[in-house]
């Protein structure tokens, strides 16, 4: 089996990378003067674990047929994806300054045609799980050995198409599909509980035939363990409900629906970087 060696040797190192990615995405959104920081920060530890520990990928061969595929179905959180792709070597660091700019590789929502490493376009919610299901099924048809990892939002599960895919994947016995549900409890307009509650989530997915795991999406050891364990859940597809905090790591953004889709100004950005770095034992000046 072709696998790339894990980039991060231990949990501590992954946590450091996650902090760097958080800093990068906050900077990126600040420079763009718009974007979605809350759901990017909530997903940062999960995406870091995937790209720096769990997924079988090779940035030097983005078209390797047997690479694992990651889809960010909650496409508005793409700054976290871009930041990970930059840190992992799919994209140059100069891209950081170009989010949402004309002719940039980094579109406002993920665009697989324009951005190396982006496996599927997203933005309209409720597509990515189906696309991932199709990729997982294609592995079976073509006799290839790869796993598909799809991150969906919790608010996104209000889309009917999510449940079409949720019904199909277990019936197709897709054992090469892991869904990570970023359970940050906030959607665009307000708390999910104030808009259209989605619980009981675990029971819903279990009743559809999924192997359900539930973790703290910010405890790196738990995240890595759950992602790795999901490989062994044959013959079911797996969903990892990752309980997270929207805006995680930036005190004034945490649990505040305002930061679903607003950019921090210069002072807010400085404070955000300070807080993220302090929590990770880093100096802001070193995270560049």
């Amino acid at each position: 089996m072709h696998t790339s060696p894990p980039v991060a040797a231990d949990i501590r190192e992954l946590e450091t990378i996650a902090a760097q990615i958080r800093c990068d995405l906050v900077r990126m959104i600040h420079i763009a003067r718009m974007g979605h920081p809350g759901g990017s920060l909530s997903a940062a530890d999960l995406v870091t674990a995937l790209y720096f520990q769990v997924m079988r990928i090779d940035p030097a061969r983005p078209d390797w047929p047997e690479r694992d595929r990651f889809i960010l179905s909650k496409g508005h959180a793409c700054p976290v994806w871009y930041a990970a792709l930059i840190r992992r070597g799919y994209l140059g660091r100069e891209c950081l300054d170009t989010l949402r700019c004309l002719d940039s590789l980094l579109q406002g929502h993920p665009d697989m045609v324009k951005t190396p490493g982006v496996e599927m376009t997203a933005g309209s919610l409720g597509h990515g799980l189906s696309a991932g299901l199709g990729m997982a099924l294609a592995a079976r048809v073509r006799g290839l050995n790869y796993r598909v990892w799809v991150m969906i939002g919790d608010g996104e599960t209000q889309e009917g198409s999510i449940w079409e895919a949720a019904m199909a994947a277990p019936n197709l016995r897709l054992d090469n599909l892991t869904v990570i549900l970023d359970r940050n409890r906030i959607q665009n307009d307000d708390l999910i509980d104030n808009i259209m509650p989605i619980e009981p989530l675990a029971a819903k997915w279990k009743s559809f035939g999924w192997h359900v795991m539930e973790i703290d999406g910010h405890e790196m050891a738990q995240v890595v363990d759950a992602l790795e364990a999901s490989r062994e859940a044959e013959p079911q597809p797996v969903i990892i409900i990752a309980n997270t905090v929207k805006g995680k790591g930036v005190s004034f953004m945490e649990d505040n629906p305002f930061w679903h889709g607003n950019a921090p100004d210069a002072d807010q950005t400085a404070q955000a970087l300070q807080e993220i770095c302090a929590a990770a034992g880093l100096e802001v000046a070193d995270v560049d």
Partner: protein
Amino acid sequence: MSTSRYRYLRPEVPELLRAGTLFRDGEKRSTRFSYADEMLVLGEQLDNVVMLNADVSKGMGTFTFGQRFPEREFNLGIAEQNTIAAAAGMAHAGLIPFVSTYAIFATLRGLDMIRNSVCYTHANVKIACSHAGITPAEDGATHQGQEDLTLMRAMPGMTVIAPADELTTRRAVQAAAEWQGPVYISMTKEPVPFLYDESYPFAIGRAVTIREGDDATIIANRDMVAQALLAAESAAAEGLDVRVIDCHTLKPLDEEAILVAARETGAIVTAEDNILVGGLGSAVAELLIEHGPVPMRRIGIDETFAQSGPYLDLLERYGLSAGHIVQAVREVVARKGDA
């Protein structure tokens, strides 16, 4: 006199046109079944072709693909959104998925997926739909995909084909598989006449003149090609020599063939079993208004939902029959001197 004006038609078709018996039993077939049959051929030719059904595999005839290639057919149930986005994922993983369902379900329920996951990503997905236009006649308005051509034409990068008969449907399937990128094939529930012989020169984006004529041109697609031929035959009896173009590819449009027809015949009638907004008539009008306006009329469904009833009766009721086309031809010919 008129027989020699025809091109590529099966030898018996001119006689059937003259006798008015084009739609007689045994001489027609639903193009959905022509599609299903050709998919069996394609499945043998290409092992990366997969069939995605959505609970109308019996209505489409495409259950046969699953019988022949069980490992390459997936019936994803009554879930068009999931089916179409899954097809995009499969295409991006190296397969050529053909999504088979009815026009109204794919192009309306699945439109967001067609736009964002298929067309925007340049996915090599083929969407093949029956029940286009009013061809699911007795099923009524909820099943009549009268805007599929409009919607698919509005998708950047989508190739849109509306073949008129069995032979061109089979050719369209082969061409779609060779074509890199999304293709939509619009087909009929109602049986349509076998029109063409093997000499028909099918190519995506190339409209075909199937009747020569100098007084006016009827440009038609899908099931309206048969009505256009009937109209031309009828017009010939009045002394009008009408060209007929089978514009099977709505996008990319064969602009050259249309501009030449406008220049040489000086009057255009378009005929489509589709709403008038944004379909073939719109495409032709948009072209001509910029590059060579001539008297023109559009035959199509005009701002209404149709009802249940026999197909030929519906054509008559909603202004789509050969008789309505002939009347439009008379009008545009009469206006030729006005400009």
